[in-house]
């Protein structure tokens, strides 16, 4: 998503550098009518709420006017970093994010490599179409399916029992130690097919001459996969990986919120759930806003760094 910014800011020299005069404004009035109201709209919905960040530095009470609020400086931020439950939430967020990232990348790359080896176009397209299906389902539906499959009489326990791998059904969703893995697996189930699109496109643009040369040298199929295909998509993998680092605090909200329950809260709650719980449910707006600001500031910093790195690499490797 972000590399578009890299490209955009990189090289786009306007042909004519017009000065803003009344004549120009009049000439371009239709462009102005078409875009300035939309700019006002985005400022209202994306920028104005930043004013709300002041709440994190106050003991905010909805009943009071802005001038009557009590300012408390960094009190809420200090509280957050001494609060065990926030640190736990931070740990959960980072852990699930890293697990999702590792599982997501490896499974999508492996699936793309295997799909790329299918030579029958119809069969390949069919598998691809089916593998995209879960991407279009909502998390509500996906977590419903996950919960049904993992229930004590669900298909997973069924299969494991029939294979005699376990004697008693496992209560998957009631034990914290399974939760991170279940979230990771749910993400893989939902997105693995979709995530192959980008790798398959990269593979399609590898020069066929490379494969022919490898054939001349008598390279086996595995060697071609590892020495032609994989290096061919390496730039794509690296860029996506760097970008993903910028999203390290985005472990998701929906899946943890929907699959979590009282028995696994110590493992399931993420920063977003913390904000929801303290903010809207308990009315502690200041603390929740402080947690939200922390997340945004860290994310933006990481994203900018990632963008910078990707841009540097992009110039060397991609162009």
């Amino acid at each position, binding site marked *: 998503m972000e590399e578009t910014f890299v490209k955009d800011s990189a090289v786009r020299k306007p042909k004519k550098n017009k000065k803003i005069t009344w004549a120009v404004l009049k000439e371009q009035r239709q462009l102005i009518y078409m875009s300035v109201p939309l700019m006002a*709209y985005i400022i209202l919905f994306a920028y104005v709420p930043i004013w709300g960040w002041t*709440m994190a530095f106050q003991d905010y009470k909805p009943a009071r006017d802005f001038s009557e609020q009590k300012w408390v400086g960094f009190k809420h931020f200090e509280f957050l970093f001494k609060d065990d439950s926030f640190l736990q939430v931070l740990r959960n967020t980072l852990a699930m994010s890293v697990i999702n990232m590792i599982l997501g990348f490896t499974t999508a790359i492996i699936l793309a490599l295997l799909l790329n080896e299918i030579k029958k176009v119809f069969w390949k397209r069919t598998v691809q179409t089916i593998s995209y299906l879960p991407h279009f389902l909502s998390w509500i539906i996906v977590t*419903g399916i996950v919960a049904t499959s993992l229930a004590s009489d669900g298909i997973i326990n069924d299969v494991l029992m029939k294979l005699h791998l376990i004697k008693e059904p496992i209560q998957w969703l009631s034990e914290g130690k399974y939760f991170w893995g279940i979230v990771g697996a749910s993400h893989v189930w939902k997105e693995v097919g979709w995530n192959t699109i980008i790798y398959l496109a990269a593979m399609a643009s590898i020069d*066929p001459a490379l494969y022919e040369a490898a054939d001349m040298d008598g390279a*086996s199929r595995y060697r071609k996969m590892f020495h032609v295909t994989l290096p061919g998509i390496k730039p794509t993998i690296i860029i996506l990986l760097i970008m993903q680092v910028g999203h390290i605090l985005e472990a998701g*909200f929906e899946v943890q919120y929907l699959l979590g329950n009282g028995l696994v809260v110590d493992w399931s709650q993420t920063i977003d759930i913390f904000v929801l719980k303290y903010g809207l449910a308990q009315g502690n707006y200041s603390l929740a*806003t402080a947690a939200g600001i922390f997340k945004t500031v860290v994310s933006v910093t990481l994203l900018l760094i990632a963008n910078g790195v990707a841009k540097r690499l992009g110039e060397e490797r991609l162009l």
Partner: protein
Amino acid sequence: MANQTISPGPATAAAAPKSVRKKRVEPILFNTFNTLFMIGLVVVTLYPFLNTIVVSLNAGNDTIRGGIYLWPREFTWQNYKAVFASGTIYDAFWISVARTVLSTLLNLVLTTMLAYTLSRREYVFRKPITLIFILTMYFNAGLIPGYFLMKDLHLLNSFWVYVIPSMISAFNMIVIRTYIGTIPESLVESARIDGAGDFKIFIRIIFPLCKPVLATIALFVAVGAWNSWFDAFIYTSSRQELSTLQYELMKLLSSSMNANSNPAVAAGAGMTQDAAVNMVTPISIRAAVTVVASVPILLVYPFMQKYFVVGLNVGSVKE
């Protein structure tokens, strides 16, 4: 989501090496493994969904006995009748349809209009407006400030909170703008010589020519609108008549999850109004709602596949 490569299309990948392959035995082994793997993938992807459809078509009191896999034991339409007889779900279905249609139309027209103005090199406000939109991809004021904004704008407990806050996405704007960049400038210039203003050029020339990329964007926006539940959860939950289908499904899911841990709640929760029809159980109702909530999208996306694969690549074309 984003993509670096310009691909000539996935189909060319398959055409690479054919000559040397026959001599080897290992391809047979590999192909067997690969085929089995793909069959496994298809089964794992489709089974939970097919099972849900079967459960939704099986008599509820029979499903509880277990052992329903891929074929209904006691076929019935009763679950669907109960779903649509229940006013809440029927209303929610139409609210979901309305928000999806409205969001999609508004997004397409407004985002394309903005993208057109920002594609005009001579436009004096091109750079600042572009920057204002692109920055919104990096940060977000957060849940609590956003909530207060909706409150101040009197959008709480209003249908419009589903539509108005998400009328334009910066990412989609860039995808469309990139696509507009591929339209020959001579078309715009000749229209201008004929006396057409920017608005007319947008409506008559640019918008119709953007169809392929708009098909992709329409799919993404529609899927997002149809699948979202969080806005109904936090902004409109005190007005039942504004509930959406996904949110109703979420309520059914969470009541049944509570039911797992506490049987006393189970008796009270769920579809009390359907208790008269004792063939229907919370599990079968949930399955039927899941099918109703996912089928509209699943009917559409396979036909959009050629567009979204192209669309994803267009978003990444370098300039």
